[in-house]
Protein backbone atom coordinates (compact mmCIF):
# COMPACT_ATOMS: atom_id res chain seq x y z
CA UNK A 1 0.00 0.00 0.00
CA UNK A 2 2.81 2.37 0.94
CA UNK A 3 4.57 1.51 -2.33
CA UNK A 4 1.50 2.26 -4.46
CA UNK A 5 0.90 5.53 -2.62
CA UNK A 6 4.55 6.51 -3.17
CA UNK A 7 4.24 5.78 -6.91
CA UNK A 8 1.07 7.86 -7.16
CA UNK A 9 2.62 10.80 -5.31
CA UNK A 10 5.83 10.50 -7.38
CA UNK A 11 3.77 10.57 -10.59
CA UNK A 12 1.87 13.62 -9.36
CA UNK A 13 5.20 15.35 -8.70
CA UNK A 14 7.02 14.35 -11.89
CA UNK A 15 4.45 14.38 -14.70
CA UNK A 16 3.35 18.05 -14.40
CA UNK A 17 6.96 19.30 -14.47
CA UNK A 18 8.53 17.01 -17.03
CA UNK A 19 7.71 19.43 -19.88
CA UNK A 20 10.07 21.97 -18.30
CA UNK A 21 12.99 19.72 -19.27
CA UNK A 22 12.08 20.15 -22.92
CA UNK A 23 12.01 23.94 -23.24
CA UNK A 24 14.57 25.05 -25.83
CA UNK A 25 15.46 28.41 -27.33
CA UNK A 26 13.62 28.90 -30.62
CA UNK A 27 16.44 31.06 -32.01
CA UNK A 28 19.07 28.42 -31.30
CA UNK A 29 16.92 25.67 -32.78
CA UNK A 30 16.36 27.77 -35.92
CA UNK A 31 20.11 28.36 -36.29
CA UNK A 32 20.82 24.65 -35.91
CA UNK A 33 18.10 23.60 -38.36
CA UNK A 34 19.23 26.19 -40.90
CA UNK A 35 22.82 24.97 -40.56
CA UNK A 36 21.77 21.38 -41.16
CA UNK A 37 19.37 22.31 -43.99
CA UNK A 38 22.00 24.24 -45.92
CA UNK A 39 24.68 21.61 -45.18
CA UNK A 40 22.55 19.09 -47.05
CA UNK A 41 22.92 21.20 -50.16
CA UNK A 42 26.70 21.37 -49.80
CA UNK A 43 27.35 17.72 -48.94
CA UNK A 44 26.00 15.66 -51.84
CA UNK A 45 26.43 12.30 -50.11
CA UNK A 46 24.55 13.47 -47.04
CA UNK A 47 21.72 14.77 -49.24
CA UNK A 48 21.57 11.52 -51.20
CA UNK A 49 21.14 9.52 -48.01
CA UNK A 50 18.36 11.79 -46.75
CA UNK A 51 16.57 11.89 -50.09
CA UNK A 52 16.77 8.10 -50.46
CA UNK A 53 15.14 7.61 -47.08
CA UNK A 54 12.28 9.95 -47.97
CA UNK A 55 11.75 8.76 -51.52
CA UNK A 56 11.56 5.20 -50.19
CA UNK A 57 8.29 6.26 -48.55
CA UNK A 58 7.08 9.21 -50.60
CA UNK A 59 8.62 11.09 -53.53
CA UNK A 60 6.56 14.15 -52.58
CA UNK A 61 8.65 14.59 -49.43
CA UNK A 62 11.79 15.07 -51.51
CA UNK A 63 10.04 17.98 -53.22
CA UNK A 64 8.40 19.45 -50.13
CA UNK A 65 11.67 19.35 -48.23
CA UNK A 66 13.02 21.70 -50.90
CA UNK A 67 10.01 24.03 -50.82
CA UNK A 68 9.82 24.44 -47.06
CA UNK A 69 13.57 24.93 -46.80
CA UNK A 70 13.51 27.67 -49.45
CA UNK A 71 10.53 29.40 -47.81
CA UNK A 72 12.23 29.20 -44.40
CA UNK A 73 15.54 30.55 -45.69
CA UNK A 74 13.77 33.39 -47.47
CA UNK A 75 12.12 34.46 -44.20
CA UNK A 76 15.45 34.07 -42.43
CA UNK A 77 17.15 36.29 -45.00
CA UNK A 78 14.54 39.00 -44.47
CA UNK A 79 14.80 38.71 -40.69
CA UNK A 80 18.62 38.76 -40.60
CA UNK A 81 20.13 40.66 -43.51
CA UNK A 82 23.58 39.35 -42.50
CA UNK A 83 22.35 35.82 -43.20
CA UNK A 84 20.95 36.76 -46.61
CA UNK A 85 23.96 36.00 -48.87
CA UNK A 86 24.34 32.47 -47.51
CA UNK A 87 20.58 31.89 -47.55
CA UNK A 88 20.20 33.17 -51.11
CA UNK A 89 23.07 31.01 -52.33
CA UNK A 90 21.36 27.92 -50.89
CA UNK A 91 17.95 28.99 -52.22
CA UNK A 92 19.28 29.39 -55.76
CA UNK A 93 20.98 25.99 -55.72
CA UNK A 94 17.76 24.33 -54.50
CA UNK A 95 15.53 26.11 -57.03
CA UNK A 96 17.84 25.48 -59.97
CA UNK A 97 18.28 21.82 -59.07
CA UNK A 98 14.52 21.36 -58.63
CA UNK A 99 13.71 23.01 -61.96
CA UNK A 100 16.39 20.88 -63.65
CA UNK A 101 14.92 17.66 -62.24
CA UNK A 102 11.41 18.67 -63.27
CA UNK A 103 12.63 19.52 -66.78
CA UNK A 104 14.68 16.34 -67.23
CA UNK A 105 12.60 13.75 -65.34
CA UNK A 106 9.15 15.28 -65.68
CA UNK A 107 6.61 16.18 -63.00
CA UNK A 108 6.05 12.51 -62.12
CA UNK A 109 9.49 12.41 -60.54
CA UNK A 110 8.10 14.31 -57.56
CA UNK A 111 4.65 12.71 -57.50
CA UNK A 112 3.45 9.46 -55.98
CA UNK A 113 3.10 6.54 -58.42
CA UNK A 114 -0.71 6.73 -58.56
CA UNK A 115 -0.36 9.98 -60.52
CA UNK A 116 0.11 7.80 -63.59
CA UNK A 117 -3.06 5.82 -62.92
CA UNK A 118 -5.42 8.31 -64.50
CA UNK A 119 -5.63 11.28 -66.85
CA UNK A 120 -5.65 14.90 -65.74
CA UNK A 121 -9.06 16.42 -66.45
CA UNK A 122 -7.90 19.96 -67.13
CA UNK A 123 -5.48 20.85 -69.90
CA UNK A 124 -2.61 21.51 -70.02
CA UNK A 125 -1.56 18.53 -67.91
CA UNK A 126 0.23 19.82 -64.83
CA UNK A 127 0.28 19.36 -61.09
CA UNK A 128 -0.82 22.22 -58.89
CA UNK A 129 1.31 20.66 -56.17
CA UNK A 130 4.49 21.35 -58.12
CA UNK A 131 3.38 24.57 -59.78
CA UNK A 132 2.18 26.21 -56.57
CA UNK A 133 5.21 25.38 -54.46
CA UNK A 134 7.72 26.20 -57.20
CA UNK A 135 5.96 29.51 -57.86
CA UNK A 136 6.08 30.35 -54.16
CA UNK A 137 9.78 29.46 -54.05
CA UNK A 138 10.53 31.73 -57.02
CA UNK A 139 8.41 34.55 -55.64
CA UNK A 140 9.85 34.46 -52.12
CA UNK A 141 13.36 34.45 -53.52
CA UNK A 142 12.57 37.54 -55.55
CA UNK A 143 11.00 39.29 -52.56
CA UNK A 144 14.28 38.89 -50.66
CA UNK A 145 16.36 40.10 -53.62
CA UNK A 146 15.37 40.46 -57.24
CA UNK A 147 16.72 37.85 -59.61
CA UNK A 148 15.68 38.76 -63.17
CA UNK A 149 16.14 35.18 -64.43
CA UNK A 150 13.28 34.03 -62.19
CA UNK A 151 10.76 36.62 -63.35
CA UNK A 152 9.63 34.85 -66.53
CA UNK A 153 9.46 31.35 -64.97
CA UNK A 154 7.32 32.76 -62.15
CA UNK A 155 5.00 34.54 -64.55
CA UNK A 156 4.62 31.43 -66.72
CA UNK A 157 3.93 29.22 -63.71
CA UNK A 158 1.31 31.61 -62.30
CA UNK A 159 -0.35 32.08 -65.68
CA UNK A 160 -0.66 28.30 -66.10
CA UNK A 161 -2.10 27.89 -62.60
CA UNK A 162 -4.65 30.65 -63.10
CA UNK A 163 -5.71 29.29 -66.49
CA UNK A 164 -6.21 25.79 -65.13
CA UNK A 165 -8.06 27.00 -62.03
CA UNK A 166 -10.50 29.01 -64.12
CA UNK A 167 -11.54 25.83 -65.97
CA UNK A 168 -12.90 24.34 -62.73
CA UNK A 169 -16.30 25.30 -61.27
CA UNK A 170 -14.60 25.46 -57.86
CA UNK A 171 -11.63 27.42 -59.24
CA UNK A 172 -9.15 24.72 -58.34
CA UNK A 173 -6.50 22.85 -60.29
CA UNK A 174 -5.54 19.21 -59.90
CA UNK A 175 -2.41 18.00 -58.19
CA UNK A 176 -3.18 14.43 -59.22
CA UNK A 177 -5.66 13.25 -61.88
CA UNK A 178 -9.08 14.66 -60.93
CA UNK A 179 -7.78 15.32 -57.42
CA UNK A 180 -7.51 18.91 -56.21
CA UNK A 181 -5.90 19.60 -52.85
CA UNK A 182 -6.71 22.56 -50.62
CA UNK A 183 -3.09 22.63 -49.49
CA UNK A 184 -1.82 23.02 -53.08
CA UNK A 185 -4.47 25.51 -54.23
CA UNK A 186 -4.02 27.81 -51.25
CA UNK A 187 -0.23 27.77 -51.74
CA UNK A 188 -0.89 28.69 -55.39
CA UNK A 189 -3.08 31.61 -54.27
CA UNK A 190 -0.31 32.83 -51.96
CA UNK A 191 2.17 32.67 -54.83
CA UNK A 192 -0.19 34.75 -56.99
CA UNK A 193 -0.47 37.31 -54.22
CA UNK A 194 3.32 37.57 -54.10
CA UNK A 195 3.56 37.91 -57.86
CA UNK A 196 1.02 40.74 -57.76
CA UNK A 197 3.19 42.45 -55.21
CA UNK A 198 6.40 41.88 -57.20
CA UNK A 199 5.31 42.55 -60.74
CA UNK A 200 2.12 44.55 -60.47
CA UNK A 201 -0.06 41.79 -61.91
CA UNK A 202 -3.61 41.60 -60.62
CA UNK A 203 -5.13 38.33 -59.46
CA UNK A 204 -7.32 39.98 -56.84
CA UNK A 205 -10.55 38.90 -58.53
CA UNK A 206 -9.47 35.25 -58.81
CA UNK A 207 -8.38 35.25 -55.16
CA UNK A 208 -11.65 36.75 -53.99
CA UNK A 209 -13.69 34.40 -56.17
CA UNK A 210 -11.78 31.39 -54.85
CA UNK A 211 -12.54 32.30 -51.23
CA UNK A 212 -16.18 32.95 -52.06
CA UNK A 213 -16.48 29.60 -53.85
CA UNK A 214 -14.58 27.74 -51.13
CA UNK A 215 -16.90 29.04 -48.42
CA UNK A 216 -19.85 27.76 -50.41
CA UNK A 217 -18.56 24.48 -51.80
CA UNK A 218 -15.32 23.38 -50.20
CA UNK A 219 -16.04 23.41 -46.47
CA UNK A 220 -17.11 20.45 -44.39
CA UNK A 221 -20.72 21.08 -43.31
CA UNK A 222 -20.17 19.79 -39.75
CA UNK A 223 -16.99 21.66 -38.79
CA UNK A 224 -16.86 24.51 -41.29
CA UNK A 225 -13.25 23.54 -42.04
CA UNK A 226 -12.03 23.34 -45.64
CA UNK A 227 -11.96 19.76 -46.85
CA UNK A 228 -8.55 18.51 -47.89
CA UNK A 229 -9.23 17.11 -51.35
CA UNK A 230 -11.94 17.18 -54.00
CA UNK A 231 -12.51 16.59 -57.69
CA UNK A 232 -12.25 19.26 -60.35
CA UNK A 233 -16.02 19.72 -60.24
CA UNK A 234 -16.00 20.11 -56.45
CA UNK A 235 -17.06 16.66 -55.23
CA UNK A 236 -15.45 16.12 -51.82
CA UNK A 237 -12.94 13.24 -51.72
CA UNK A 238 -11.80 13.73 -48.13
CA UNK A 239 -13.07 15.64 -45.14
CA UNK A 240 -10.99 18.13 -43.17
CA UNK A 241 -7.45 16.94 -42.40
CA UNK A 242 -4.78 18.40 -40.17
CA UNK A 243 -2.06 17.73 -42.72
CA UNK A 244 -3.86 20.20 -45.04
CA UNK A 245 -5.70 22.77 -43.00
CA UNK A 246 -2.87 24.23 -40.91
CA UNK A 247 -0.86 25.12 -44.00
CA UNK A 248 -3.95 26.23 -45.91
CA UNK A 249 -4.90 28.66 -43.13
CA UNK A 250 -1.35 30.01 -43.14
CA UNK A 251 -1.33 30.53 -46.92
CA UNK A 252 -4.76 32.16 -46.83
CA UNK A 253 -3.49 34.79 -44.40
CA UNK A 254 -2.30 36.90 -47.34
CA UNK A 255 -5.36 36.10 -49.43
CA UNK A 256 -8.21 36.73 -46.98
CA UNK A 257 -7.02 37.29 -43.43
CA UNK A 258 -10.47 37.01 -41.86
CA UNK A 259 -11.29 33.70 -43.55
CA UNK A 260 -7.82 32.41 -42.65
CA UNK A 261 -8.23 33.29 -38.97
CA UNK A 262 -11.63 31.62 -38.92
CA UNK A 263 -10.18 28.45 -40.46
CA UNK A 264 -7.34 28.40 -37.94
CA UNK A 265 -9.73 28.85 -35.02
CA UNK A 266 -11.92 26.01 -36.25
CA UNK A 267 -8.96 23.70 -36.84
CA UNK A 268 -7.60 24.50 -33.40
CA UNK A 269 -10.93 23.72 -31.80
CA UNK A 270 -11.31 20.40 -33.61
CA UNK A 271 -7.76 19.07 -33.84
CA UNK A 272 -5.74 20.45 -30.95
CA UNK A 273 -4.87 18.23 -27.99
CA UNK A 274 -2.82 19.11 -24.95
CA UNK A 275 -1.88 17.67 -21.57
CA UNK A 276 0.76 18.35 -18.95
CA UNK A 277 2.38 21.16 -20.93
CA UNK A 278 2.63 19.13 -24.15
CA UNK A 279 0.55 19.73 -27.25
CA UNK A 280 -0.16 17.79 -30.42
CA UNK A 281 -2.69 17.61 -33.22
CA UNK A 282 -4.99 14.95 -34.58
CA UNK A 283 -5.43 14.41 -38.29
CA UNK A 284 -9.23 14.35 -38.30
CA UNK A 285 -11.98 16.04 -36.29
CA UNK A 286 -14.17 13.82 -34.12
CA UNK A 287 -17.01 14.04 -36.63
CA UNK A 288 -15.04 12.66 -39.58
CA UNK A 289 -12.54 9.83 -39.79
CA UNK A 290 -10.47 9.39 -42.91
CA UNK A 291 -8.08 6.65 -43.87
CA UNK A 292 -4.58 6.78 -42.45
CA UNK A 293 -2.28 7.70 -45.32
CA UNK A 294 1.12 9.04 -46.20
CA UNK A 295 0.05 12.60 -45.31
CA UNK A 296 -1.22 11.81 -41.84
CA UNK A 297 1.69 9.51 -41.04
CA UNK A 298 1.12 6.82 -38.44
CA UNK A 299 -1.63 7.90 -36.03
CA UNK A 300 -1.12 6.87 -32.41
CA UNK A 301 -4.49 5.65 -31.15
CA UNK A 302 -6.09 6.85 -27.87
CA UNK A 303 -3.89 9.95 -27.82
CA UNK A 304 -4.84 10.73 -31.46
CA UNK A 305 -1.34 11.92 -32.34
CA UNK A 306 -0.67 12.48 -36.05
CA UNK A 307 2.92 13.29 -36.93
CA UNK A 308 1.90 15.05 -40.14
CA UNK A 309 -0.79 17.18 -38.56
CA UNK A 310 1.31 17.98 -35.47
CA UNK A 311 4.24 19.10 -37.61
CA UNK A 312 2.09 21.41 -39.69
CA UNK A 313 0.24 22.64 -36.60
CA UNK A 314 3.54 24.34 -35.75
CA UNK A 315 3.15 26.34 -38.96
CA UNK A 316 -0.42 27.27 -38.07
CA UNK A 317 0.34 28.21 -34.47
CA UNK A 318 3.39 30.28 -35.46
CA UNK A 319 1.49 31.96 -38.26
CA UNK A 320 -1.39 33.06 -36.05
CA UNK A 321 0.76 34.03 -33.06
CA UNK A 322 -0.75 31.26 -30.94
CA UNK A 323 2.09 31.24 -28.43
CA UNK A 324 0.48 28.87 -25.93
CA UNK A 325 -0.12 26.13 -28.50
CA UNK A 326 3.24 26.73 -30.18
CA UNK A 327 5.10 26.26 -26.88
CA UNK A 328 3.19 23.05 -26.21
CA UNK A 329 3.89 21.71 -29.68
CA UNK A 330 7.58 22.56 -29.37
CA UNK A 331 7.79 20.81 -26.00
CA UNK A 332 6.29 17.69 -27.58
CA UNK A 333 8.72 17.95 -30.45
CA UNK A 334 11.67 18.02 -28.09
CA UNK A 335 10.22 15.15 -26.05
CA UNK A 336 9.03 12.83 -28.76
CA UNK A 337 10.74 13.72 -32.04
CA UNK A 338 14.18 12.70 -30.80
CA UNK A 339 16.49 15.61 -31.66
CA UNK A 340 20.03 14.75 -32.70
CA UNK A 341 22.59 17.56 -32.54
CA UNK A 342 25.75 17.13 -34.58
CA UNK A 343 28.39 19.49 -36.01
CA UNK A 344 26.34 22.57 -35.14
CA UNK A 345 23.30 21.19 -36.95
CA UNK A 346 20.09 19.58 -35.78
CA UNK A 347 17.79 16.94 -37.12
CA UNK A 348 14.77 15.27 -35.54
CA UNK A 349 15.22 11.52 -35.85
CA UNK A 350 11.51 10.76 -35.64
CA UNK A 351 10.89 12.86 -38.74
CA UNK A 352 12.83 13.41 -41.92
CA UNK A 353 14.26 16.30 -43.90
CA UNK A 354 10.83 17.67 -44.80
CA UNK A 355 9.87 17.60 -41.12
CA UNK A 356 13.00 19.56 -40.21
CA UNK A 357 12.28 22.05 -42.99
CA UNK A 358 8.66 22.51 -41.86
CA UNK A 359 9.83 23.20 -38.33
CA UNK A 360 12.44 25.66 -39.57
CA UNK A 361 9.75 27.42 -41.57
CA UNK A 362 7.55 27.65 -38.46
CA UNK A 363 10.44 29.15 -36.49
CA UNK A 364 11.44 31.65 -39.18
CA UNK A 365 8.11 32.74 -40.62
CA UNK A 366 6.72 36.21 -40.26
CA UNK A 367 8.85 38.64 -42.26
CA UNK A 368 7.66 37.44 -45.67
CA UNK A 369 3.93 37.77 -45.03
CA UNK A 370 4.54 41.13 -43.30
CA UNK A 371 6.44 42.36 -46.35
CA UNK A 372 3.61 41.30 -48.64
CA UNK A 373 1.06 43.17 -46.55
CA UNK A 374 3.09 46.39 -46.34
CA UNK A 375 2.17 49.23 -48.65
CA UNK A 376 4.46 49.24 -51.69
CA UNK A 377 7.29 51.76 -51.37
CA UNK A 378 8.89 53.09 -54.53
CA UNK A 379 11.68 50.75 -55.69
CA UNK A 380 10.91 48.11 -53.07
CA UNK A 381 9.90 44.55 -53.93
Amino acid at each position, binding site marked *: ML*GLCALLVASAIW*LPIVHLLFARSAERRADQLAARGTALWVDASLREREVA*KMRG*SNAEWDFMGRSFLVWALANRALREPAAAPRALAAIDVIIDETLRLERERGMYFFLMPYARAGRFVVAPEASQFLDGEIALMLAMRRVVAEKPEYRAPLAARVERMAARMKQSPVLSAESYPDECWTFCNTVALAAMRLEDRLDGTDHAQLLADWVKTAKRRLVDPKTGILVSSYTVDGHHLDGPEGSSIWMAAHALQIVDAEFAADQYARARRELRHSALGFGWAGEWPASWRGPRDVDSGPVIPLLDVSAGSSGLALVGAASFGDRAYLDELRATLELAAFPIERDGGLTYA*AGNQVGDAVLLYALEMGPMWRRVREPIARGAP
Partner: protein
Amino acid sequence: MKRAPLLSPRGLVLRAAIVALVFALAHAAGLRAYTSILSGTSPTGNAADGWAALLGCIYVLLYFAFILAVPIALIAAALMALATRWLERPGAKAGSAANDPAL
Protein backbone atom coordinates in the same frame (compact mmCIF):
# COMPACT_ATOMS: atom_id res chain seq x y z
CA MET B 1 21.38 -13.04 -3.41
CA LYS B 2 17.89 -12.13 -2.20
CA ARG B 3 15.83 -10.30 -4.81
CA ALA B 4 14.53 -6.90 -3.66
CA PRO B 5 10.69 -6.67 -3.81
CA LEU B 6 9.44 -4.38 -6.61
CA LEU B 7 7.65 -1.98 -4.28
CA SER B 8 10.53 -1.30 -1.95
CA PRO B 9 13.04 1.55 -2.10
CA ARG B 10 15.83 -0.80 -3.10
CA GLY B 11 13.65 -2.66 -5.62
CA LEU B 12 12.57 0.55 -7.32
CA VAL B 13 16.11 1.95 -7.51
CA LEU B 14 17.42 -1.32 -8.87
CA ARG B 15 14.81 -1.50 -11.60
CA ALA B 16 15.27 2.16 -12.49
CA ALA B 17 18.99 1.49 -12.84
CA ILE B 18 18.36 -1.50 -15.11
CA VAL B 19 16.05 0.52 -17.37
CA ALA B 20 18.56 3.37 -17.50
CA LEU B 21 21.36 0.97 -18.38
CA VAL B 22 19.42 -0.77 -21.14
CA PHE B 23 18.34 2.59 -22.55
CA ALA B 24 21.95 3.82 -22.49
CA LEU B 25 23.00 0.73 -24.45
CA ALA B 26 20.23 1.23 -27.03
CA HIS B 27 21.19 4.88 -27.36
CA ALA B 28 24.89 4.08 -27.73
CA ALA B 29 24.01 1.50 -30.38
CA GLY B 30 22.46 4.27 -32.49
CA LEU B 31 18.85 3.10 -32.30
CA ARG B 32 17.62 6.70 -32.00
CA ALA B 33 17.93 7.04 -35.79
CA TYR B 34 15.39 4.24 -36.23
CA THR B 35 12.61 6.32 -34.65
CA SER B 36 11.90 7.81 -38.07
CA ILE B 37 9.26 5.09 -38.30
CA LEU B 38 7.07 7.46 -36.25
CA SER B 39 6.68 9.68 -39.30
CA GLY B 40 6.33 6.77 -41.70
CA THR B 41 9.90 7.23 -42.98
CA SER B 42 11.96 4.09 -43.29
CA PRO B 43 15.34 4.56 -41.58
CA THR B 44 16.97 2.44 -44.26
CA GLY B 45 15.07 3.70 -47.29
CA ASN B 46 13.30 0.33 -47.55
CA ALA B 47 9.71 0.79 -46.40
CA ALA B 48 9.32 -3.00 -45.95
CA ASP B 49 12.23 -3.28 -43.51
CA GLY B 50 10.52 -4.85 -40.47
CA TRP B 51 13.69 -5.07 -38.39
CA ALA B 52 14.30 -1.35 -38.63
CA ALA B 53 10.73 -0.71 -37.48
CA LEU B 54 11.16 -3.11 -34.56
CA LEU B 55 14.40 -1.44 -33.45
CA GLY B 56 12.68 1.95 -33.65
CA CYS B 57 9.79 0.70 -31.48
CA ILE B 58 12.19 -0.76 -28.91
CA TYR B 59 14.05 2.54 -28.66
CA VAL B 60 10.81 4.52 -28.25
CA LEU B 61 9.63 2.24 -25.42
CA LEU B 62 12.99 2.39 -23.62
CA TYR B 63 13.17 6.15 -24.05
CA PHE B 64 9.77 6.80 -22.53
CA ALA B 65 10.56 4.36 -19.73
CA PHE B 66 13.74 6.34 -19.08
CA ILE B 67 12.05 9.75 -19.22
CA LEU B 68 8.88 8.87 -17.34
CA ALA B 69 9.21 5.66 -15.35
CA VAL B 70 12.78 6.02 -14.08
CA PRO B 71 12.32 9.43 -12.38
CA ILE B 72 8.97 8.33 -10.94
CA ALA B 73 10.54 5.17 -9.55
CA LEU B 74 13.41 7.16 -8.01
CA ILE B 75 11.09 9.75 -6.46
CA ALA B 76 8.84 6.97 -5.15
CA ALA B 77 11.87 5.16 -3.68
CA ALA B 78 12.92 8.33 -1.90
CA LEU B 79 9.39 8.89 -0.58
CA MET B 80 9.15 5.30 0.63
CA ALA B 81 12.50 5.51 2.37
CA LEU B 82 11.48 8.75 4.10
CA ALA B 83 8.08 7.36 5.09
CA THR B 84 9.63 4.17 6.43
CA ARG B 85 12.16 6.11 8.49
CA TRP B 86 9.40 8.32 9.87
CA LEU B 87 7.16 5.38 10.74
CA GLU B 88 10.05 3.53 12.36
CA ARG B 89 11.37 6.46 14.35
CA PRO B 90 11.87 5.81 18.10
CA GLY B 91 8.60 6.14 20.02
CA ALA B 92 6.38 5.95 16.94
CA LYS B 93 3.40 3.62 17.05
CA ALA B 94 1.44 2.60 13.97
CA GLY B 95 -1.86 4.49 13.86
CA SER B 96 -0.96 6.34 17.06
CA ALA B 97 -1.56 9.86 15.85
CA ALA B 98 -4.62 10.15 18.09
CA ASN B 99 -2.47 9.30 21.10
CA ASP B 100 0.19 11.85 20.21
CA PRO B 101 0.34 14.30 23.15
CA ALA B 102 1.34 17.01 20.72
CA LEU B 103 -2.11 16.92 19.09
